């Protein structure tokens, strides 16, 4: 039986409707999810297992691999030592993709995970950056994020350093208020907290 014009028209309508439903169904997930603005030492993510504030978002071409390439290129941070942390995204909880640090003693340290692409921001990766000391006195306890001083807390210093290195290399950056200022106790007994501002740093398509 040869399909009539009416059959063809109906077929086209069905295909068009299917495509429309498919496209309409996906945008719910197509955004950066900042409902949870902290990293976690385990999954599922809870308020009790928070470790660090998220204070950097790599955007535009911010896949985790490009973020890695450009972090190493612009900072020279190549050490990979550090504990594994997890990031929350759209109700799930997932291990970080990578971490880099400026050394093994007192150092800058950043962990990150690639997240959902976002209609406005492009490919994104969320990151937690900080500066930490290797505490030896009065009791050796290991790495502790700096409590705050004139330059802010260790979290603020880590964000500032990343932002400075990237902008010096021509990447654009701006800050957004996220308010994730919860204090975190460190192994030396001090507390450190973000000042609540997150740096949105452009990552371009070309790997270095």
């Amino acid at each position, binding site marked *: 039986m040869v399909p009539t014009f009416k059959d063809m028209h109906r077929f086209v309508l069905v295909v068009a409707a299917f495509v429309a439903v498919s496209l309409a169904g996906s945008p719910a997930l197509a955004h950066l999810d900042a*409902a949870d603005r902290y990293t976690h030492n385990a999954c599922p993510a809870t308020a*009790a297992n928070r470790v660090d504030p998220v204070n950097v978002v790599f955007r535009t071409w911010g896949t985790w691999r490009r973020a890695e390439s450009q972090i190493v290129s612009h900072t020279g941070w190549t050490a990979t030592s550090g*504990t594994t942390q997890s990031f929350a995204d759209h109700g799930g909880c997932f291990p970080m993709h990578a971490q880099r640090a400026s050394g093994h003693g007192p150092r800058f340290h950043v962990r990150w995970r690639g997240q959902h692409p976002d209609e406005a921001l492009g490919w994104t990766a969320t990151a937690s950056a900080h500066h930490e000391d290797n505490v030896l006195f009065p009791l050796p306890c290991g790495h502790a994020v700096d409590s*705050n001083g004139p330059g802010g807390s260790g979290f603020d210093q880590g964000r500032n350093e990343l932002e400075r290195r990237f902008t010096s290399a021509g990447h654009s950056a701006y800050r957004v208020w996220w308010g994730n200022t919860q204090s975190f106790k460190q192994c030396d007994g001090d507390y450190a907290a973000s000042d609540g501002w997150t740096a949105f740093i452009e990552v371009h398509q070309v790997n270095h």
Partner: protein
Amino acid sequence: MGRFAVGILALPLLVVGGSAGAGTSPETFPLYWVGERVDGLPLAASLRRDDTARYVSFVYGDCEARSDAGCAPPAEIQVWPSCLRNLALYDDPQASVGRPPERISVRGVPAAFFDDGTRLELETEGSTIVVFAGSRGGALTIAAALRSLDDSVAAGHPFPARRKGVSQKEGVQSC
């Protein structure tokens, strides 16, 4: 971070903002806390920041931090000058990407939940009170118990509201 000794003896120092390593300028915004204990959690630390952020913090309960892994105390109250931190900051769409804050009213003042109910911000006259807790219920319990450090506002009573005619953004600019 400026850290105060814990306990009643520290409170006069806190009111005037003076303590070893904690800076010397007096706070010019009203302070709120819940006393020496809340929801079974003892006051563990009182902190003061005056650098890239400015607030007084009361930390309740303890947690075990390890090398390269800090930990989140069970509850914390931060009090910021409302000219630096208020709900208008969340008007920027990127401030709440993916999850707009849930706006409510608590004890007669505007408030909003963030982070799945584990952060509650209350906008009072002169101060923004930020409550961190393990759950929405925990945050509301703390909010109900808040009282001013100078005893002018008792627990459970209405907070003084931000003056009408002063917009939030104007407040930030005049800080």
